[in-house]
Structure formats: structure tokens, C-alpha cells
């Protein structure tokens, strides 16, 4: 069976879900601004833009910084929930055996049916923030940064897909019914430098951070947000790292999900 049909099944599932569940669509639209408002609100309440610049050590607009952080954090969370948590979701609603009965490999089914939803959500959220970025940065600088953000959420997604598929395999094997991801996700984001720059973390934590694909996705978005005009070499370097990690994690996921599925099928976990 073609991967095109698999991708298409993901597209129609999302279209149907949003069509029949407008509340979910509206909350998806509101969510990025709610998160941004919360972070900026907290910042203004306990500090000021000047204090922020002083702490960061760069002349950067806090709004742009948090827009980039919000987009990347949400995209990273989305991938981890969308692929990793998908196993849980399907188990809860009872569709898991029928998903596994698809003639495709489970890792491909989990990843390919999710990609359309991710792209749709990520691009809608970038589009939502685009006017704000253009107003603050001006048209040329703004478009440049929007471009880098688009690259960050698309290229940054690639290693995260494999990384999250590994979680899916774990959830499949251990017949996990509880929400491991709900406490694991913030830890991963913390190590990835989503809340504090990764270079501020202790040495041992930095070692973990270097293994996490989300670290490089966040770094790419930060480069765009913090530096007025980041050098192409910097961006290319980060994209290269992301592509390399993507290859490793996705190949690993391709093998491990298969092993996890076999283990789950042996134990009767499906």
C-alpha cells in the first residue's frame, strides 16, 4: 500500500475531526496566543523588557523571542503527543488493534497518518503569529524570520518524529495506560533548553540535551529570534545536525517499533 494513501488518510481524519468538532479547531487557533500572553504577562508582572534583554545579553524583542519559543515548544509537544501519545489515544478509544491491522508497518502508520495534522497545525500557528512578527520586525526582517521559523518547524519535526515513535514503541510494549508523556514532556523540554538556554544547564544535563533532537530545533528557532540577521552558515549547520539526527532517530524507530510491536504481541498487550 502506498504511503500517499496513508498520508491522505491522516489528512481526511483531521479534516473530519475539525469539521465535526469546531471547539477543538477554535482552541487550536487560540492556544498559541494564550500561551504567549501567559509568558509575556508573567514577564511583565515580575520584570521588564529591559531586564529581559539584560539577562539574555542581546538586544532582542521579548515578544519575538517568546513567539519563537512558543511556536517551537508547541510544535515539539505536538509531535511528541501526536506520535508517542497516539498509541495511548488509540488504546483508550479502542482503535489500536484496527490501526495495527493496517498492512503497513506500525511505525510508518503512526508517523505518516500524523504528518498532515502536524503540518496543518504548525502552519496555521505560524500564520497566526505572522502579522505580529511583521509589525515588530518590519517586512523584510519579518519575512526572513518567518522563513526560518517555517524551516525550524518542518525540519525540526523530522528527528522528533522518530524520537516520538520510540516513545510509542515503549507505550505499546509496557501496555501503558497512564500518561507517562504528561510528566516526561516537560522534562524533555527542560533539557532541550525550551525554558532556559541549554548552555546554562549543568554539565551532565547538557550531555542529555545534546542527544535530544528538540535541542537543535529550539536552537534554530532561537537563532532566528535572538540574532537580527543570523548567518546562513549557522542555520545550515543546525539544519545539517537536525537532518543527521533525523536519520538516526527515524532508522532507530523503524527497527525499535517493530521489536516493540512484536513484544507487545507476545505479551498480549494489544
Amino acid at each position: 500500500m502506498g504511503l500517499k494513501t496513508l498520508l491522505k488518510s491522516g489528512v481526511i481524519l483531521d479534516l473530519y475531526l475539525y469539521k465535526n468538532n469546531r471547539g477543538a479547531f477554535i482552541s487550536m487557533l487560540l492556544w498559541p496566543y494564550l500561551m504567549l500572553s501567559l509568558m509575556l504577562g508573567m514577564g511583565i508582572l515580575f520584570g521588564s523588557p529591559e531586564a529581559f534583554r539584560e539577562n539574555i545579553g542581546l538586544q532582542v524583542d521579548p515578544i519575538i523571542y517568546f513567539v519563537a519559543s512558543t511556536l517551537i515548544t508547541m510544535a515539539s509537544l505536538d509531535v511528541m503527543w501526536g506520535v508517542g501519545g497516539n498509541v495511548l489515544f488509540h488504546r483508550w478509544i479502542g482503535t489500536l488493534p484496527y490501526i495495527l491491522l493496517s498492512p503497513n508497518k506500525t511505525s510508518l502508520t503512526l508517523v505518516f497518518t500524523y504528518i498532515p495534522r502536524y503540518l496543518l497545525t504548525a502552519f496555521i500557528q505560524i500564520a497566526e503569529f505572522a502579522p505580529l512578527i511583521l509589525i515588530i520586525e518590519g517586512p523584510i526582517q519579518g519575512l526572513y524570520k518567518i522563513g526560518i521559523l517555517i524551516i525550524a518547524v518542518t525540519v525540526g519535526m523530522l528527528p522528533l518524529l522518530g524520537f516520538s515513535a520510540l516513545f510509542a514503541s515503549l507505550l505499546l510494549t509496557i501496555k501503558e495506560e497512564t500518561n507517562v508523556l504528561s510528566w516526561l514532556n516537560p522534562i524533555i523540554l527542560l533539557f532541550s533548553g525550551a525554558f532556559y538556554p541549554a548552555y546554562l544547564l549543568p554539565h551532565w544535563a547538557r550531555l542529555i540535551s545534546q542527544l535530544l533532537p528538540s535541542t537543535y530545533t529550539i536552537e534554530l528557532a532561537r537563532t532566528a529570534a535572538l540574532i537580527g540577521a543570523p548567518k546562513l552558515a549557522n542555520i545550515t549547520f543546525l539544519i545539517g545536525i537536525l537532518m543527521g539526527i533525523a536519520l538516526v532517530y527515524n532508522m532507530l524507530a523503524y527497527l525499535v517499533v517493530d521489536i516493540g510491536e512484536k513484544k507487545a504481541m507476545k505479551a498480549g498487550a494489544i
Partner: protein
Amino acid sequence: MSHEAAITVRNLKKNYTTYLRKGLFKREKKIVEALKGISFEVYRGEVFGLLGPNGAGKTTTVKILSTLLLPDSGEAKILGFDVVKEAAKVRKVIGVSLTVEKGFFWKLTGRENLTYFGMLYGIDGEPLKRRVEEVLDMVGLKNLGVADKLYEEYSLGMKARLSIARALITNPEVLILDEPTLGLDPPSARTLRELLVKIAHEERKTVLVTTHNMFEAEIVCDRIAIINEGRIIALDIVEKLKESVADNISLEIFALLPANISVKTVISAIQNKTGLLSDAFAENGGFRIKVVIPPKESDEATSKILRLLHEYKCSVRRVEVKEPTLEDVFIQLTGRKGF
């Protein structure tokens, strides 16, 4: 119906490992033997019933045949494809329904759910559209006018029909249905049984259906395998199975019990006093007590049972002697008093 095997199962064994928690940090490993080496064949075009109580191994068998569970040993083939070594090929020729009360997206309509699963199973474009309409029609959801209703608004009967529709979406040669009428009200269960027979005969599908409902097995299945504690204890056409206990008499007594006496007490007393196994079903405010009695002992056993009921101050309203049913076959073969 030919005698060419569509499903072949040979000496299939499966153990589950479970852990019993003993305190905060200790747990005890327990091995549960779900299948103890079952063998059977399902012929092309027949409706084959796997009949047994809860925990007999029906769902384990179904899951192995559906490629969702790996056996410990033995062999199972569907249309010649090994369920372990050629799982992908098996998936292409089977349609599966595991539960009727869930397994779909709640915020999608019946039609949308079928379209999604159709695509997931590799059908697309016009053939998919056509097939979705066909199966909706086949299972009667179109006639009921609910194909475009959200799944969350479906009744259990409609959900069961949709589950069969999904199993049919790829037009598979073999259908594997695990308790398709479980939890349905009698009219819905009846409609679904009729549907199963229609699909099997008109669409020429091989159907393996599990059930613990003997009445259902009797009217739906061409052949039945009775499975108990992981073993197949009988396999034949219904008539032959009944013949195996034809010498016995099935005694049915309808009685009202006093408030302080439980039906369990009465059943145990019958067994202690006569050595015969019996079963009881609630009926019109009282109980229908059913006992299978060897013919030689019939007079003596009947009077013993009636005396016992009198001792317990049960009010006997009706006593009937009946032809053996599949239920009697089950009681005789397993020594179990119903499911």
C-alpha cells in the same frame, strides 16, 4: 460449502504471564495457560462458531488468527498464509471485529469512520467511495438513516453493525468476529445474527464467530467447536453435538424461591443430593432450573429434586421434560453450570 480449509489451526498454545502484587515492592509471577494445544479447521464458506465461557480461550484464538497476538507454539494458517510468518498477507485477506462497543472515532460519522479505515487499509478514490456505500447498505445503516450521524450518537446495535461494516470494507474472504452480539438487546442481536448469516451465505464469506450464547451458536453456525479452559472439547455440526447427549433427559423446573434462600444454595443442594449438575436462569420473577439427567436415573432423580425444592420451601409452578439443547451438550461436556 466445500471442505477445503480456509483456516487451519494446529496444536496452538498460548500462555500469559501475569503478576500478582504482594505488598508494595513484591509481586508474584503467575502463568495462565490460555490455550493448551487447540486444533481445528474452518471450511471455506462456512460459519464456524467457537463457543465457550468467559476465559475459555476464544478471544486469544481470535487475536492469534487476526495476527494481533503471537502464539507460543503451534501453527495457524488463513488461506494458506501463516499468521506469524506471513502476517501482512493474512491481514489482507481477513476482516476483524473485536469489540462492538468501541473501536471508532467518536467525533466522526459512521461513513467517515469507514472512509478513514478504508484508506488505512489501502483503498482510495472511487473504489473506496463505492465500497463504503456497499457496506453501509449491507449492514443496514443506510436504511436506518444513520450513516451520517456521529458515532457518539450511535446505539450499541448500530455500533455493532458499523464494526461488521469495517470488517467487510476490504471485501475480505475471511471474517473473524469476536462476540459480535455481546451486550446487544434481543431485537438488535437477532438482526445482527440474521445479518451474519446473510453475509456468510450471500457474500460467500468464511466466518469464524466466537460467542458464549448457545442459542446464537445454534442458529448461526454451520459447525461449532466447544472450547473450555483452553481446550476444544467437541467439534461438529449442531445436530451431531445434540445427538451425543440425546440419551439424556433435560428436566426444567420453574420455581419461586423464598426470599431467604438463594438460587446458588438450591443449585448446590441439588448437586450434593443427586450428584447432577444443574443451572438456573431468572425468569418471570422466579427461576428456571435446568438439570440434565441420565435416563436410568430419571424417575428417582426427579423425585429427589422435587422433594429437595419442597424442603427449601420453593413453590414449584411447572415441570417440563425437554429435548437436549446445545446447552445440555455444554453442561455434559464441561461439567460447568453455564457461563
